[in-house]
């Protein structure tokens, strides 16, 4: 069991927050270029294929760069 873990784990210290932000940057770039190319908003599937990132990762990544919502106005000012 310990071996599976060692095999799969490359002890990469990258933090989740950083990798999500990098993905979000790629997603937004792909969104812009696909919008020009297709002449319409791309759907999630098209973006996923263009940058080879599962839809699941796209959802998590977009959240990482979410604009502050109104809840911040009262709670974090």
């Amino acid at each position, binding site marked *: 069991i310990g071996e599976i873990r060692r095999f799969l784990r490359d002890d990469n210290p990258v933090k989740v927050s950083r990798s999500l932000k990098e993905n979000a940057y790629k997603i937004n770039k792909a969104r812009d270029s696909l919008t020009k190319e297709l002449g319409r908003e791309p759907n999630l*599937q098209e973006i996923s294929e263009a940058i080879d990132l599962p839809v699941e990762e796209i*959802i998590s990544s977009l959240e990482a760069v979410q604009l502050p919502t*109104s809840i911040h106005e009262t709670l974090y000012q």
Partner: protein
Amino acid sequence: MDKIVRNQIKLEFISIPENVGLARITIAALASQLDLTLNDLEEIKVATSEAVSNAIIHGYRNKPAGIVKLIGSLYEDSIVIEVIDEGVGIADIPQAMQPAFTTDPERMGLGFVFMQSFMDEVKVESEINNGTRVILTKKLEGAGIQKAVS
């Protein structure tokens, strides 16, 4: 004729601000089972955030002891999101939904405006001291159910 539910989830969480993002991401994951644009997805996320933050800020007056319930239902051509709290309730619903109306002078009173502009239908049920239920519907014509995401 009743519509066929394709998928249904229920999420319950304690009323702390961290969970606004969590609720938003869960609903986004559900919505992404339909074939949507990022625009549609963002609109659904903003509307969900506004309803969930209202439950936390107004319903439970920012106290972390409350439970917020979120029910998401996916139909062939629409998504329905219910946000339920058992908080203070709303005295006058039509007034609360007016643009710029707020009971908190530090806020802008635009939450319901966002919900109404981003969703096709916004229904509010509320009873003083019993809580509030907001039902948000967005039609996603031609979206079609996608193949399994997992």
